[in-house]
């Protein structure tokens, strides 16, 4: 199909067809990443600016490698939360970057809504690398890519997301994406970590983990932030791990062929034990590998590289 977007702000705005297009294109880039010479000239002469206003290692590295392997020039800027809030507003900063005429801005930002605003106001491509508790669309796409690779399909898969659904942009993007492609989605969490209106999301809601462990094809364990404990969303890590952590006992209950995913970084011993994270069911590192290919696909599609160059 034709790709007509210059930006990727959210999964909510994508059609199922667009999602599947990204996954198809990703597969071809994955092959390039495994070559001896991991570089194609597709985006030669294009400039990609990575603006990271929140700490990130893997997402930033993944985007940077993706751009470099397509021969784009990259500049990565990491700005700490406290310094950018003083003086210059984020729109000032964005307009200054824009004045240097980049072809693409990849933005990670602690508050929801900025990528949408940049996409509206800037003429270059804008790719959302995570905004507040809103969306993290490339993470969802790489997750779907990894699931499809493992199972050969997405429709009808039972995917269970476990943990902090309320504050997680990864969960939001994944719920939208999985529903669009026809997967069955369950969320598992205490009520304090679910949005108050979860009943309107069209997902199965579970407060008990064990029944879901036995039935799901994919267990996606979400990172638990320590600050949620301070907000009284759960009493302590021990209790959380007992009710919602993935340990050996639960791994042994999983269906044959079922897999474990985690968007990282992993809190070992809290939402997942090392046996589960490092065991044979874990496809956590496949997710990371696919992340580069998916981001290459998006840069390629949004920046309008031609099919021949690929």
């Amino acid at each position, binding site marked *: 199909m034709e790709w007509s977007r210059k930006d990727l702000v959210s999964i909510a705005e994508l059609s199922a067809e667009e999602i599947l297009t990204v996954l198809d294109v990703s597969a071809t880039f994955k092959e390039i990443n495994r070559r001896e010479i991991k570089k194609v000239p597709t985006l030669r002469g294009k400039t990609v600016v990575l603006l990271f206003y929140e700490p990130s290692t893997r997402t930033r590295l993944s985007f940077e490698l993706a751009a470099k392997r397509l021969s784009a020039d990259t500049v990565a800027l990491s700005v700490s939360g406290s310094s950018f809030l003083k003086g210059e507003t984020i729109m000032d900063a964005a307009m200054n970057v824009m004045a240097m005429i980049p072809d693409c801005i990849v933005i990670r930002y602690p508050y929801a809504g900025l990528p949408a605003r940049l996409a509206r106001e800037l003429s270059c491509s804008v790719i959302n690398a995570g905004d507040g*508790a809103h969306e993290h669309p490339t993470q969802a796409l790489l997750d779907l890519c990894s699931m499809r690779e493992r199972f050969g399909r997405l429709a009808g898969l039972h995917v269970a997301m476990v943990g902090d659904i309320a504050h997680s942009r990864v969960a939001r993007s994944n719920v939208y994406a999985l529903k669009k492609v026809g997967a069955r989605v369950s969320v598992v969490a205490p009520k304090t970590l679910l949005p108050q209106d979860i009943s309107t999301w069209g997902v199965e809601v579970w407060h008990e983990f064990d029944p879901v462990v036995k039935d799901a094809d994919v267990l996606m364990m979400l990172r638990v932030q320590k600050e949620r404990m301070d907000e009284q969303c759960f009493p302590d890590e021990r209790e959380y791990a007992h009710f919602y952590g993935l340990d050996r006992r639960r791994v042994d209950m999983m269906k044959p062929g079922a897999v474990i995913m985690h968007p990282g970084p992993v809190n070992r011993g809290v939402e997942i034990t090392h046996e589960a994270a490092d065991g044979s069911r874990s496809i956590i590192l496949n997710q990371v590998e696919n992340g580069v290919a998916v981001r290459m696909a998006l840069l390629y599609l949004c920046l309008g590289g031609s099919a021949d160059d690929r």
Partner: protein
Amino acid sequence: MIVKGGRLIDPASGRDALADIVIAGGRIEGIFPPGKAKGGGGETIDATGLWVLPGLIDMHAHLREPGQEYKEDIASGSAAAAAGGITTVVCMANTDPVNDNPTVTRSIIDRARAVGLARVLPAGAITMGLEGRRLAEMGLMKRSGIVAVSDDGRPVEDASVLRRALEYASTFGLPVILHSEDKSLAGKGVMNEGPLSARLGLPGIPAAAEEAMVCRDLAVARYAKTPVHITHVSTGGALAAIGACKETSLGMTCDVTPHHLLLTEEALSAYDTVFKVNPPLRTEKDRLALIEGIRNGTVDCIATDHAPHAADEKALDFDLAPFGVIGFQTLLPAIMKIHLEHDIPFMRLLACVTTNPARILGIEGGVLFEGARADLVLFDPKAVWTLTEDRVLSKSKNSPFLGWQFTGKVVRTLLEGRTVHVAD
């Protein structure tokens, strides 16, 4: 001066008829059937085809002076009020310094008199520095001219401080205006909590944050045997709680804002910070409940909560931008819109910005009869116009209604018989 041929609409007397109004010495000297006026030398104002209304009273506004004159000052705020047909403005105490002492009160009143475009009546703080701990000098501030007390922008969190404040304020005959919000429930919220906040990834303010505090405030007020006025009610639940104790003799009252009457949270879907207000824009169900409250009398007043913020401040991220919209120049057009779209008698809506606030505040004004101060608005009910930024007289342009087309326009405003605004 004589205002001839207009349709006089006065909620206090229930009069709705063509009339000539003779004004002398800043007061209404007489009201006569058309063509029968006696006296009234000087200027003749032709009000044919216009409605003649009492000057409006806005019991909730922020004029930002002293301290934040880059957002608004008494001069620009008064000009905007006059352009909106508002002749009396109650300005909240959250200035810098806070209006918690008679010196600040005096300075606001003196400045407003020098400007002379609107009658500015300050609300004093309930507590020193709006901190919710020690009572402000309510008695002395009253002597300097405050007409009410309010810690607006914040709730009085400590219930025992609230109790004492209610008892003390009523000793001096001062109405208490409460911003009822449970801060612990509202948390870092920036919009109504619900499916939309979950989709946008913005922290939510639950309806319960308002409803819980309204219930507490009403319970404390009942116990202290004093009335309270709850300002900017935004949820159906909060309004129901207020409605339920309307029948007590204490006279619990409330106001709603035009933006809560005309907008819902749906306006936020593009993260436009102009729609960031506190309390937040709620659901359509809430909006209709507020409109129903006007129809059935549970809502006493409509007040703008005019809250100017500079463009730089509103340009911040949704999480960081300040709460508030301006509202003076759209108050009457908004009322007209509600009248036309919801079939609520104009007279009832008009009472919400004239007689009702006058009664609650215990002030003169909001009426058109012989001997009353000649504060009046000439309103063209048929004029169709669009709000554009260049029409906004406030220093800040953060109106949620920019680009809206309204029916009904303020043509002229008189303050004590003086013309303080004429539409171009």
